[in-house]
């Protein structure tokens, strides 16, 4: 179908990236900007937003019904893909990328686009560091793990203290919202909030700016269409880091 209905793709390869994260490669490429996402339809289960980790792959952490169903799929199985949707990261020349956990997925194409000078990569433990080899080939990676099994012990945020942030024109952040909120506090403190963009996760139904399920307070901006990438300035006085809404629209704390 030539319209906005799902494109059928066939899974060509499945890579175990970490104990809990897999990449699914499919047989059709999607032209996209780093940070854009697609709606992934797992037939008979549900449809979920996923960042593209390359032209023809998504990288997924097992967290719920749909991702569990996805993890049970095999090479040759089919998915439906709508998109890409959303805005993606603003282009920069000298980018600092900050990722936590599966948040490295939308940042990998940014790194491969050869504009990222430094990447701060965080995870709970060594085995959960996502895309380390690929990132290492393209940029200067600095690592933090909660348990200190590799790199700095502690949160990725702490790595910011050792950098000269004046070197960078953009700062791109993706990871768990608690981690992103602490990055937001840190960049505010360091006076570089205006350079910073965060990729948000919110429950979304339509993915194209119509249903309103992913609107954030107090701006009413739509994560799926006006985002998912927002400037730190917009997020500072917002629900970001405090609460989000579930499928019914009820607020839940982060």
């Amino acid at each position, binding site marked *: *179908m*030539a*319209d*906005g*209905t*799902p*494109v*059928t793709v066939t899974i060509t390869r499945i890579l175990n990236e970490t104990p809990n994260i897999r990449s699914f490669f499919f047989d059709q490429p999607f032209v996209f900007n780093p940070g854009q996402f697609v*709606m992934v*339809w797992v*037939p*008979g*289960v*549900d*449809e*979920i937003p996923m960042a593209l980790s390359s032209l023809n792959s998504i990288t997924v952490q097992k967290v719920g019904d749909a991702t569990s169903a996805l993890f049970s799929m095999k090479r040759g199985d*089919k998915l*439906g893909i*709508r998109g890409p949707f959303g805005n993606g990261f603003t282009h920069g020349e000298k980018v600092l990328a900050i990722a936590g956990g599966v948040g490295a997925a939308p940042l990998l194409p940014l790194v491969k686009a050869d504009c990222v000078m430094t990447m701060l990569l965080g995870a709970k433990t060594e085995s959960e560091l996502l895309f380390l080899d690929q990132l290492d080939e393209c940029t200067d990676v600095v690592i933090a793990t909660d348990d200190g099994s590799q790199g700095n012990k502690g949160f990725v945020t702490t790595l910011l203290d050792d950098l000269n942030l004046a070197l960078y024109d953009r700062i791109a952040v993706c990871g768990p919202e608690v981690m992103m909120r602490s990055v937001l506090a840190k960049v505010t403190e360091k006076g570089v909030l205006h350079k910073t963009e965060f990729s948000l996760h919110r429950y979304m*139904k*339509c*993915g*194209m*700016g*119509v*249903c*309103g*399920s992913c*609107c*954030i*307070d*107090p*701006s*009413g*901006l*739509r994560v799926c*269409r006006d985002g998912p990438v927002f400037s730190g300035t917009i997020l500072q006085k917002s629900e970001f880091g405090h609460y989000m*809404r*579930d*499928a*019914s*629209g*009820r*607020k839940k704390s982060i």
Partner: protein
Amino acid sequence: MVTIRPGPVNVGGVELQNHLLLAAGVLGTTGASLSRMLLLGAGGVVTKSIGPLPKEGHSGPCLVALEDGLLNAMGLPNPSKEFVDELAPLAKKPVVASIFGGNPEEFAEVAGWFSGKVAAAELNLSCPHAEGYGAAIGSDPALVEACTRAVVRTGLPAWVKLTPNVTDITAIGKAAEKGGASAIVAVNTVKAMRISTGLRRPVLGNRYGGLSGTAIFPIAVRCVYELYEAVKVPIIGCGGVSTADNVVELMMAGASAVEIGSAVHGDIQVFEKIRAALYAKDGVMASEIVGCAHG
């Protein structure tokens, strides 16, 4: 093009800022989103449909874009009573609460939550893809009348949104009028389906859904025209409006105001753009064109 002279707009007991309302189910899930749409030029906003209990809605896909419309089956996701708090910052604004229930009692209960807090209640008697709700009730004139009456008793002006998926929409419109409706909203989405030939199954998680957008505009015009000859209460046109000329056309069919939904997919600035094209100081009085295509 026909343009309209700006002036006060009072339809179905609600003072609107212009003739263009945000339709239910579109960007109406949070108070912030509704506020944004008022800022972006909507003359009034209708909330996401709120029901007696929280609902998560259908599994996805819930909405797909077609070449000339949108196909959706959200499944009436809503936070239920919690939603009342969302509207606190919107007091005195032209906000209409869309409500649904499985029977007159449930409609009354939900309407009661909003009494005194919104300008009107819009009864969703027309959602084509939620079992036991919406069109399941809205195709039965007796139930439509009873639900309308139950909401009227709460003191809110009752707008009744009709489904086009009936043999005779005028019978339903008359039932709403008999129940005391302050306005009729015509129409909700048209029951439809698309199938993914690649995946060999319907594209919506709920299989069946509702078609909106330009594809259904000629159906909306027809329904408004039919209703205008059948009822005396004001009609609010809805279905596929995306230009100022579409607004004029629905008004000539008999609409006193219009709701716009799917067109925000193309452009969230659609209210401001239509408003700029629709109004002119040397335009005609709105009352001159409402229903002028009859007789």
